[in-house]
């Protein structure tokens, strides 16, 4: 009984992880600018990989397999937000304009204060 329940939970996690990975892939292909593509990449990184690895962890049969997948999960939880932050910071510092409306952030950029409007 408990094994069937564990199997069901595991396959639900693995399949929803695959679904969110596909959603992230569609997002990185279809989103309009870099900072919204970061959002889609974060979905595939944390939700997709996290759910898939948790589902695989529930199927594993030895202790070391579970431990390795746990290390992989912890590593993803550390590096995925860091990589997204580094990409966003480098892009902002080298002048990639975020696609906004007439918000306060757009008006506070130095390139905009000089009147150089480079809307993509």
């Amino acid at each position: 009984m408990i094994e069937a329940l564990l199997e069901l939970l595991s396959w639900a996690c693995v399949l929803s992880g695959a679904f969110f990975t596909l959603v992230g892939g569609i997002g990185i292909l279809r989103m309009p600018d870099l900072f919204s593509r970061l959002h889609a990449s974060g979905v595939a990184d944390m939700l997709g990989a996290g759910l898939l690895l948790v589902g695989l962890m529930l199927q594993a049969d030895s202790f070391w397999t579970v431990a390795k997948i746990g290390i992989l999960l912890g590593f993803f939880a550390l590096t995925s937000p860091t990589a997204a932050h580094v990409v966003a910071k480098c892009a902002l510092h080298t002048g990639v304009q975020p696609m906004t409306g007439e918000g306060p952030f757009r008006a506070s950029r130095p390139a905009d204060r000089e009147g150089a409007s480079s809307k993509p």
Partner: protein
Amino acid sequence: MFVPVVIAVVLTMGMALVRALCGPTLYDRILALNMFGTVTVMLLSVSAFVAGRPDFLDIAMVYALMNFIGTTAVLKYFRYGDLGGTGHDVEPTRPEGEALR
């Protein structure tokens, strides 16, 4: 049961590669390559269970490490101009408002 998972993961790898090939700025390409590496780690983990060989999880861990270090190193190089610097905010290597292609 693993077949739809593998199909979804391979489709996502293809979409990330398309974005890496035709991304308008450099950062789109780097982001797509980072995501490609993540999805490759997922494919390696799944193939460890499909093939019944848990050794593939070691390869997946090494690939995740290399992916993060590679992404950060390339971004640091394009931000500061060298890899050995301290990473403080010094002069940017190009004027503001000019995005890398």
